[in-house]
């Protein structure tokens, strides 16, 4: 078989592969062999409050995974054990379960304490806010982001900028050409 025949054969195989790809695409679209690992957490149907709510991302991740069946919670395990108590068959199982119960009780008590303290804190903050003059209320309300940025984050920004400038100043003589 001469060189020309080899070239013709390779070209023929290439053409067949291209045809196979086109047929596959036209029948079912291009589908990757493994499912995608990217999930859209927020889309155009979400409002500004959805995006800016406290713990918006972590809460949405949990919700998304729950919809896709990707998360098993402690409550799921407890419900399963409630239906199948025979699974706790050894003293180690029982000991671990008792530890979980103790932690869960402490967790619930902490949640109660959190809510009580949060309520007291919000009540007092509201009391302070309501005692302010209307102009002061407006000022605090309208400038809260600016106050936060200028008063706290700006210190970090300025500190980084100063570090960069100091580094540039110390390196500058080395870059100078005679």
């Amino acid at each position, binding site marked *: 078989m001469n060189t020309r025949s080899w070239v013709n054969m390779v070209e023929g195989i290439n053409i067949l592969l291209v045809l196979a790809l086109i047929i596959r695409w036209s029948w079912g679209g291009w589908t990757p062999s493994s499912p995608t690992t990217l999930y859209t957490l927020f889309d155009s149907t979400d409002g500004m409050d959805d995006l800016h709510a406290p713990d918006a991302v972590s809460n949405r991740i949990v919700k998304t995974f729950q919809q896709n069946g990707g998360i098993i919670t402690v409550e799921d395990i407890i419900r399963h054990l409630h239906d199948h108590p025979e699974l706790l068959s050894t003293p180690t199982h029982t000991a671990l379960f008792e*530890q979980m119960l103790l932690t869960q009780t402490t967790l619930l008590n902490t949640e109660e304490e959190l809510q009580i303290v949060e309520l007291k804190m919000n009540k*007092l903050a509201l009391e302070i*806010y309501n005692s302010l003059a209307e102009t*002061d*209320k407006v000022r605090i*309300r309208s*400038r809260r982001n600016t106050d*936060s940025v200028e008063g*706290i984050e700006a210190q970090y920004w300025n500190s980084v900028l100063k570090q960069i400038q100091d580094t540039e100043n110390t390196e500058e003589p080395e870059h100078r050409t005679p």
Partner: protein
Amino acid sequence: MGNSILPLTTDDLARGLLFNPTIVVPYDQIEQTYRYRTEFAQLQDKHRTLQIQLSSKAVALLKEMESK
């Protein structure tokens, strides 16, 4: 708290008072709010730690049951 789209938090109020020194508020109220805020942060931390501990214990139990 407040009329904005997003509620004004205690932290917003504290920052607002800190960076607007012309606004005068009774000291004991500020001090008490600070105590509540500190306690709240400590409880949040404890809550997170307990959640992690509970999850770890649940995983340990599952592993133990799997090994039998």
